[in-house]
């Protein structure tokens, strides 16, 4: 059920990101709503389908974006892995896990996108990319991290209700 739900939810988020959030800019960075949702889903306590969501998110964004699809899919899967790692490290501090995972996930996805574009011949300067795109994007993502975490937490609680043993 949780895997099936990921398709319409992430699909809607891709549409929102393409139509609306891609125009919300800080310098030249933008919000990655799909990444935030994916990270928030992965750091939830009882969620077991984080990898599936990562794959679905990578495929959906890869269809829309001009960045090579393998880079996007790999980026989102590595971001999922980072989120799961931080969930384990900060298991008693879920907000801290979300913040750390958001920052790491932004760096990972941007690094892979940058590498893929450079490999395919697009001339993008590294220092400008970091200063004007990656860091502002990370800041925007961090600003939205907690609200997205709260919303995704409600979704996770409905799909993975807490089992109370009597």
């Amino acid at each position, binding site marked *: 059920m949780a895997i099936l739900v990921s398709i319409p939810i992430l699909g809607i988020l891709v549409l929102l990101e*393409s139509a609306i959030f891609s*125009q919300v800019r800080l310098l030249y960075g933008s919000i990655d709503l799909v990444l935030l949702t994916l990270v928030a889903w992965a750091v939830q306590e009882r969620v077991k389908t984080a990898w599936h969501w990562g794959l679905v998110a990578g495929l959906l964004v890869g269809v829309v974006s*001009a960045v090579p699809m393998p880079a996007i899919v790999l980026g989102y899967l590595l971001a999922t892995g980072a989120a799961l790692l931080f969930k384990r490290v900060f298991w008693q501090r879920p907000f801290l896990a979300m913040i750390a995972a958001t920052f790491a996930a932004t760096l990972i996805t941007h690094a892979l*996108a940058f590498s893929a574009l450079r490999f395919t011949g697009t*001339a993008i300067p590294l220092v400008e990319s970091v200063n004007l795109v990656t860091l502002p994007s990370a800041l925007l993502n961090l600003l939205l991290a907690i609200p997205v975490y709260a919303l995704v937490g409600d979704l996770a609680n409905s799909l993975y209700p807490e089992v109370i043993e009597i």
Partner: protein
Amino acid sequence: MNMPRSLQTVTLALVVIGILLLALGGYLTPFSRLALSPFVGAQTWLFTRYSAVRDFFTTPRDVTLLSQQNAQLEAEISSLQAQIIQLQQQNADLEVLSALLDFAQAHPQNEYLTSAVIGRDPSPFLHYVIINRGSDDGLRRGMPVVTSQGLVGRVAAVTAGAARVQLITDPGSAINVRLNPSGAEALLTGSLTGELQLEAIPQEVEVQLGDLVLTSGLGGNYPPDILIGQITGVRQRPVELFQSASIQPVVDFSQLKIVLVIVNFQPVDLAPLIPRPGE
């Protein structure tokens, strides 16, 4: 002694007439004031109390009625304001379409397909937009995209109902251009920040601020003579092989809503003409 009846009547009539004459003359005013003031006071007291009681029972109904009318009027105002906004939007769209139509009529050699911009690339490294026309509408990869102002980009990927357009500001974009009036040829490239740069301008060419930049048609990727922008800055250093310049595009890429795709232009594939190593 009893007075005759007729004498009584006459006497009474004379008294009444006298009183009337005195009243008309104003001689009875102090007496009437003294007599009527208690009645006036009582009347005032009674009317004030009655008004208070009446208002106590009728004011809530009036307030409710006024509140309902106010709410109705406010709803009507909101509806009218929404209509105004919608009409303003339609007017703006009409102006854009009118400009596009004028552009299409001014360039009858091309066939155009109007498309709406429905999204942008989620990646902040790239400058692409998504339009609502695809292969079902006859779009193919490589078709140029313009607006009434000038060149926008070209179709980079196509699905059945949508297409992705690479803007000329994309860092992966490279266009052969011609300067007007010098006629010199150069290479226009985009950048991460969306700024347009002219490269490979020969040193001997005199480039002025405000010179127009148009497509040259060289390479077969774009039709010739499509306006791109104006030169806003020139960098010339004698130690370098070429000059470079920065361009202000005529198209506002942050406000793209409706574009024209030139559907009767097919980019030339130069690959067969390029000699392979060993040939």
